[in-house]
């Protein structure tokens, strides 16, 4: 079935983006996502779009991969564009027919929103393309570690994420196996209406649940055996170090933010 699933869609490589400290990547990605929403006109949005394109080139992730990550949002894009065109009215009217009215402002808003969403998805998918899931959960653990003062168990959360990622392929294989077993016993999974098909899934998910609990129990044993007692006193094999490139990236992001604020100030807002 889905044998060759790659978790977290990591694309192996040795580019500058791959070499960056995952913590910095994580923080900067979030910062840029926020900054995207600060953009008020096409000039500031242009900076973001150029940033996204530059980052994509720097990552050396093939264009095909990036387009693939954009595929699921095509429908959302069309939907928001259509809504924006017809619901935002103002400026010159370019075209009018019965109740359909195309205005300057509507079209601009639609284009603006589309570019915004595309940049947003491109930048955030670059994060997962250039960082392994392990490094990402590690980075999340470290970035969130100040939350410890609020008694939030950051390490436990990160461990749960790692284990979830680890077991996705195992459970997919398991579902595959159970489905085949049930088919061999004459289970009909492919015909019938929605309700009938949903009902047919029950004999698949019950064994899956049972075996998952058994797995969890055994895994807990195995982890205890390897002296796992929680986050206290643990060290990490892979240390994260901030390098010069991380500071460059930070400076670049600050410059982008500053540029956007300035451009917002000097030019008329589109939205």
């Amino acid at each position, binding site marked *: 079935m889905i044998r060759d699933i790659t978790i977290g869609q990591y694309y192996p490589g040795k580019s500058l983006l791959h070499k960056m400290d995952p913590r910095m990547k994580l923080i900067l990605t979030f910062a840029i996502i926020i900054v995207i929403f600060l953009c008020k006109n096409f000039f500031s949005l242009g900076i973001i779009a150029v940033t996204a394109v530059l980052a994509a080139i720097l990552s050396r992730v093939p264009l095909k991969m990036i387009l693939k990550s954009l595929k699921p949002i095509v429908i959302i894009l069309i939907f928001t564009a259509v809504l924006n065109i017809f619901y935002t009215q103002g400026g010159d009217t370019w075209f009018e027919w019965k109740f359909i009215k195309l205005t300057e402002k509507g079209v601009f808003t639609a284009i603006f929103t589309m570019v915004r969403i595309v940049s947003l998805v491109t930048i955030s998918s670059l994060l997962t393309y250039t960082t392994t899931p392990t490094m990402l959960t590690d980075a999340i653990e470290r970035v969130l570690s100040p939350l410890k003062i609020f008694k939030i168990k950051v390490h436990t959360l990160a461990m749960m994420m790692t284990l979830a990622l*680890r077991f996705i392929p195992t459970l997919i294989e398991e579902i595959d196996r159970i489905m085949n077993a049930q088919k061999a016993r004459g289970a009909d999974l492919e015909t019938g209406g929605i309700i009938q098909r949903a009902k047919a899934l029950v004999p698949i998910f019950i064994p899956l649940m049972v075996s998952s609990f058994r797995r969890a129990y055994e*895994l807990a044993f195995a982890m205890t*055996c390897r002296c*796992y007692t929680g986050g206290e006193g*643990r060290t*990490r*094999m892979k240390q994260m170090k901030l390098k010069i490139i991380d500071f460059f990236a930070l400076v670049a992001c600050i410059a982008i933010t500053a540029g956007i604020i300035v451009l917002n100030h000097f030019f008329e807002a589109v939205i």
Partner: protein
Amino acid sequence: MSEKLIEFNNVTMFYNDPDEAEANENIVPALLNVDFSVNKGEFVAVLGHNGSGKSTLAKLCNAIYEPSSGTVKVKGIVADNDDKADEIRRIVGMVFQNPDNQIVATIVEDDVAFGPENLGIEPKEIRRRVDDALKAVNMYDFRHREPHKLSGGQKQRVAIAGVLAMQTECIVLDEPTAMLDPMGRQEVMQTVHRMNKEMGITIVLITHFMDEAVKADRVVVMDGGRIVMQGKPREIFSQVEELRSHGLDVPQSTELCNALGLEKSVLNVDECVEEIAKMLGGAR
């Protein structure tokens, strides 16, 4: 050789509440009055059919379970609190039957690092240990792979590397080959023997494959929660009838020679060939 690493003293183990067990005669103990010890550097194979108590014995070795009565000592330490249990787990590592359920990380080398990370070892030292452990099980070239893309035997060797990297003195393997194909089984068994011979690691191998027990220093046969036979493989496998009565089969070559009525017990195919040739009255 005679230094005792693991010592069981009159150990009884109930999975249910002991008081309840005393009241109800139908509840049988998983282990009953077991005395058992493992010497340093030894290779002990524990045999028994399903439900004979061999897995319980394994889990008592590194303080996953606490005995209902009697004591289990590892290097003189009794696991009566969590700290001591932790100390025991630094001496005795364990490999389980299902390789999928004991691999924690999404990348091979990260998984091997999991144990040493828990022990709080310096990052550089962990790196060294992980590389050494992966080389020792011949999985170094796979260090950046994802575990779910490996074969069963490879996964199990990664699990063994995970224990090796903790540098425990003893490794208990609870039916490590039960879910593997013959190729994977061979890979794992070779690794286990090499660890014992070259690194001097004490091995307790729980299994129901007779062939795997043949090369052990000592064989322990369990049935109904008791140790029923104990001795060198040759001594044990010569008692074909008794082994059968405990629900076990003898290695095929041993069985053949036994059926042919040969006196001497043989353990592998080569010895078997030699004995048959001798019986037929001529050298090979």
